């Protein structure tokens, strides 16, 4: 059953994007003229060898970095026209992040870590916040650890907290750069399954990068990159072909 609606307007739209890093005299091209369109509620894996540009692409989508040329449109907004402040607002309300090293605030409890983005948003009252946080913690199976500090949890548990944190603001997109790299492969697969479950429940778009073939297999579609280019837009292209055929 297709869980992605490619016919709706794309949540991420990347048009002719290049990214170059300048290291002193030399210019390192990280992305070369990329085009990509992601529909809402997709669950995509980005694959590719080291240095192929996965992280760079995710950073552009996550609005933490800007393209050298080309257009990056997130949730209908062209990021070129946004100020640093507006980009931060966009991240806060539209994008969730899951990091390779979990990146929880060590002095805050599990509950407080998940609550953190909500406090930045200043939209909800404390009762609503509590309900939403506990809801998510129940979903990721850590409701009984709400008062614990991150240092008291295992790596897998920490990444679950991070997933809850990424989802707590009900973002349109969740980005995860190698979320399983610091976990053993069994735990890593569990994390991807959890992400997929969330993708199905919340209808949130997930884009994650990985090296791990096993992990990759859990994705609905895979984008393969090499040398700063998208070399294959696997099942997605098949899918669109299917749709074309059906039509």
């Amino acid at each position, binding site marked *: 059953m297709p869980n992605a609606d490619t016919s709706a307007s794309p949540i991420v739209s990347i048009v002719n994007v290049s990214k170059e890093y300048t290291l002193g005299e030399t210019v390192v091209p990280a992305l070369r003229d990329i085009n990509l369109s992601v529909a809402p509620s997709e669950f995509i894996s980005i694959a590719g060898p080291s240095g192929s540009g996965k992280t760079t692409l995710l950073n552009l989508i996550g609005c933490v970095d800007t393209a050298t040329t080309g257009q990056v449109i997130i949730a209908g907004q062209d990021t070129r026209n946004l100020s640093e402040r507006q980009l931060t607002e966009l991240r806060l309300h539209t994008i969730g992040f899951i990091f390779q*090293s979990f990146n929880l605030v060590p002095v805050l409890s599990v509950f407080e870590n998940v609550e953190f983005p909500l406090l930045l948003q200043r939209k909800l009252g404390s009762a609503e916040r509590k309900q939403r946080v506990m809801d998510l913690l129940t979903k990721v199976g850590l409701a009984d650890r709400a008062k614990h500090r991150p240092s008291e949890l295992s790596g897998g548990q920490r990444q679950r907290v991070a997933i809850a944190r990424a989802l707590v603001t009900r973002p349109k997109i969740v980005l995860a750069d190698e979320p399983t790299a610091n976990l053993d492969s069994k735990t890593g697969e569990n994390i991807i399954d959890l992400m997929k479950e969330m993708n199905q429940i919340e209808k949130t778009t997930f884009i994650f990068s990985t090296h791990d073939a096993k992990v990759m297999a859990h994705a609905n579609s895979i984008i393969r990159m090499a040398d700063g280019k998208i070399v294959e837009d696997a099942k997605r292209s098949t899918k669109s072909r299917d749709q074309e055929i059906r039509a």
Partner: protein
Amino acid sequence: MSELFLLIQIAIRNLFASFLNFVIGGIILMGTLLFVVGGSLLSSVDSAMSKSITGSIAGHVQVYSDKSKEELSLFSNWTMPDIAAVPDFSKIKPALLSVDNVKTVVPMGVEGANMTYGNTLDQTLDKLRKAVNARLAGDRSPALNERIVSLKDHVRRIVTVIQEDYKKLTVMASTQSIDPQELRAIEKAASAEFWNSFDADALAHLEFMENKIAPLLPDADLIFFSYVGTDLDSFRGSFDRMEIVDGQMVPPGGRGLLLSKYVYENQFKLKTAHRLDKIYEALHDEGKTIASDPDLQLMVKQNRSQTREILLQLDPLSSQRTTKTLQGFLKSSENDLATLLTTFFDTNDANFIERHGFFYKEIAPLIELYRIRPGDTMPINAFTKSGYIQSVNVKVYGTFQFKGLEKSGLAGGMSLMDLMTFRDLYGYVTPERMAESNQLKKNTGVKFVERDRAEAELFGGSSVVGTGGEKKIDDQAEMGGVKYSATARALMNRPYSRDEIDQGVVLSAAVILKDPSKMEQTMREIEAVSKKNGLGLRVVSWQKAAGQLGQFVFIAKAVLYFAVFIIFVVALVIINNAVMMATLQRVREIGTMRALGAQKRFVLKLVLIETLLLGLSFGAVGTLLGSILVKWMGHNGIPAGSEFLYFFFSGPRLYVDLGIGSLIGAFISICLVTSISALYPAIIATRVSPVQAMHAED
């Protein structure tokens, strides 16, 4: 609101998260401790000293003539500044009192003078002469007879002591160095024939003793002292720290001198007794020991060698008694009193208290402990404004001290004199008296004072320093160069009215304020009044009037504030570096927050609040410790180790007050230092890119 709460929560939990925080906290703790203690100490010294100065002589504000060549300096004891006179105090008093905040105005003239008194032989001969005169006048009472016999014996004893001295001298020095005439005179005075023939021609014998023997005793003394010539009644009313110790207050409107108790003890007391007092105090109050203190050892040595003053003062009867009691006390069979006294004064830590007690119980009642007693009239000499030496006989009514400043040589260096005597010594003659003297001159045929000599006449003399002879304002007093005799004598004894006291020359006036905190403003008002009425007054605060002393305090304060400033800067630099390091250690955390949607503002607040909270909590501990220390010091007081410090502590101990000012100051400085030192790291922290959240842990 919830965001601020979150920030504070993060800050609290990060308080002890890093070793660097302990470094920062430690500096802040020490800094605030220093600030609270130092600040309290300084403000306590400041207020104690202001009490010392304002309460002893200066008042809150001093005014003096703006024609003065030098600045008023009340506490420079020996070199009096060149201050022009204010010719008529009654002209400035009402103007000063018209200023709202002025409570009282006390006229003053700070000057130096000296006092001479004869040696023991002079004094004994003086007594003998008086007794002989009484007999010549017809008194035949047995009591007088007995007194004459006793005084004659005393003089004979003194001669014996002198003879002993000369014997020792001839042994030590070659006989040529001693004037044979002196030896012959002593021999004559010690001879039995001299004393057998005494009653036959007492006056001639007395004359021989006074002219030939008395000068051989070198203990005649000239004592310099500084004094404040003032309206004594008004002074006493305005400076309520003043209290009479010996004798009595000078009667209202009267002439007289009140010696400072400090000067009285240091200059007029029998040196041996004064040294015993000082040793007693050092042992009893300061916990020192003779064995370990070279100063005390020196005093013991001086007491052993300087027994002559006591020997001279003891008449034969007292000498015998003292010899006997000392023999009993020391369990000695020695018959020579001088040797006994030397042994007696060879004190150590074990026997001192007992001997000190014995001295005051057995020996002191037989001698004069002080060279001047309240009630004595003394000739006082001073240079007038124009260089003449004026001499006035003044009755010493008693001694006084300023409460809490008993031991302070600075506040205690000044004696008090009535304003009339001051004017005589100062040599300034009022225009009224000038006119009166001119009248007298006319009557006695003395030609008019020439116009260009008027000023010199005004100041009681026409010659330059040193060429004038001595002028006495006494029975044959001369005033303004004119003989007064009977008039002057009458002037000496009658009480003066307030008007007479006010209408005359003063050098300055102390202004006591109702509300001292408004001093600056009141000074401006006084200046305005002076200008409006053409009084020509210079207005200075007590700090300034205190002269070098005030400057010293100013410098001490400046040094302290500079030290505090340096500590601040050093703390600032260290804290800045530490916060910088702590921030760099948290780049990934900050990057994560930024990636999650925290604005730069949030990061700025995060670093600032964390450092501020760190500063406030360690600062609170420092303030608490400092306050406890200050309270402890306030309870026990810091002892003023030296007499010099008595003045600064306004008493024997400084009871440090925990100034609310230093607490507020500490709070403000913590906030200031931490925010300033955290500002740069905080700005750097806002530049952390959210990309840095992506970097894997090392």
